[in-house]
C-alpha cells in the first residue's frame, strides 16, 4: 500500500515538474539573458524539493529500499554498466542529432537546460524516495554525457 502511494507521489511530482518545464519552454527561453531568467531557472529546479520532503515526511513508514551493504554490493555492477552505457548512448545520440540536423546544441540552449533540470529533479526524487542504484546510474550517465558533450565535444 505504501509503495503504491509512493509511486503516485512520484508520478504526480514528475508531472508537475514537466508542466513547469513546458511552461518555461513556451515562454520563449531561446536564450538566458537577464537575471530574471536565471531566477526562474533556479526556482524551477528547486520546485519539486519541498514537495518531496513533505511527501517523505508523511509517508515515512516502509521507506524503501533499505540502503544496506548487501543491497549496494548486489547492484554495484549493473549500476556501473548502466552508467557507462548511458554515457555512450547519450554522447553518440547528441552527436548524431547535431550531425543530422546540422545545428549546434549551443544555438538551442533551452534543450540542454531542459535535459539538465529534468534530470536533476529526477535525481533528487530518486535520492529521496527510492534510492534505486540502477536509476542513479542512468541519471548520472545522462548528466555526465551532457557535460562531456558541452565541455569537450563542441568546438
Amino acid at each position, binding site marked *: 500500500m505504501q509503495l503504491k502511494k509512493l509511486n503516485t507521489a512520484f508520478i504526480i511530482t514528475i508531472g508537475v515538474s514537466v508542466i513547469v518545464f513546458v511552461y518555461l519552454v513556451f515562454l520563449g527561453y531561446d536564450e538566458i539573458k537577464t537575471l530574471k531568467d536565471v531566477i526562474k531557472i533556479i526556482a524551477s529546479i528547486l520546485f519539486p524539493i519541498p514537495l518531496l520532503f513533505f511527501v517523505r515526511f508523511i509517508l515515512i513508514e516502509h*521507506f524503501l529500499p533499505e540502503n544496506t551493504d548487501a543491497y549496494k554490493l548486489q547492484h554495484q555492477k549493473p549500476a556501473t554498466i548502466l552508467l557507462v552505457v548511458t554515457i555512450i548512448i547519450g554522447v553518440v545520440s547528441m552527436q548524431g542529432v547535431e550531425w543530422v540536423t546540422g545545428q549546434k546544441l549551443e544555438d538551442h540552449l533551452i534543450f540542454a537546460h531542459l535535459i539538465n533540470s529534468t534530470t536533476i529533479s529526477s535525481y533528487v526524487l530518486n535520492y529521496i524516495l527510492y534510492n534505486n542504484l540502477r536509476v542513479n546510474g542512468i541519471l548520472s550517465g545522462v548528466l555526465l554525457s551532457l557535460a562531456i558533450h558541452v565541455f569537450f565535444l563542441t568546438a
Partner: protein
Amino acid sequence: MNPIIQPPKPRTNANKRELLFTFQSIIVTGLLAFTAIAFFLHFNLRIEKGIKVIFAPFLSVVPLLFVLSILRDLRQGFKEGNYGKNEIIKFCLITIGITIAFTCVTFLLTKIDALEILLAAIMAILSIVFFLRSKIKDILGMSIITGIAEGIIVYMIFLF
C-alpha cells in the same frame, strides 16, 4: 564494513521526521535569502535611510525572542507511526492554502520599493519560520513551512 559510513545508531521515524523538518526549514531560509537578493538586484534598491535598514530586522527579531522565551512548548512531537487518510488530506489542503497565500505575499513583497521595509518583511517571515521550527514541531509546522517554500517558488516561476 566501514564504521565511518555506518550511521551511529538506528533511527526512529520520529527522528527521521525531525531531520526532514530541519532540512525543510533550512530550504525555506535559503529561499528567503535568495528572494531578498533577487529583489535587491532586480529592482536596484538603494540604501536611502541607513539607520532604518539597521533597525528594520529588530522589528521582528525582538518579538520573536520574547515570544520564544515566555511561551511554553506547543509541540506535540512527531508521530512514530503513519498518518491517517483524513489527516493527510487535511494537511495537504492546508499546504495548498498556504502556498496560495504566500504566492500573494511574495507578490506584495515585489511592490515594496524601499530596502528597509523589504528587509523587515523578509525578516518577519524568517522569524515565523524559526518560531515554527522551535515551538511547533509537528505536522502542522511542516505543512506551513512547505507552503511558504512552494508559494515563493511558484511566484518566482510563474509570476515574477
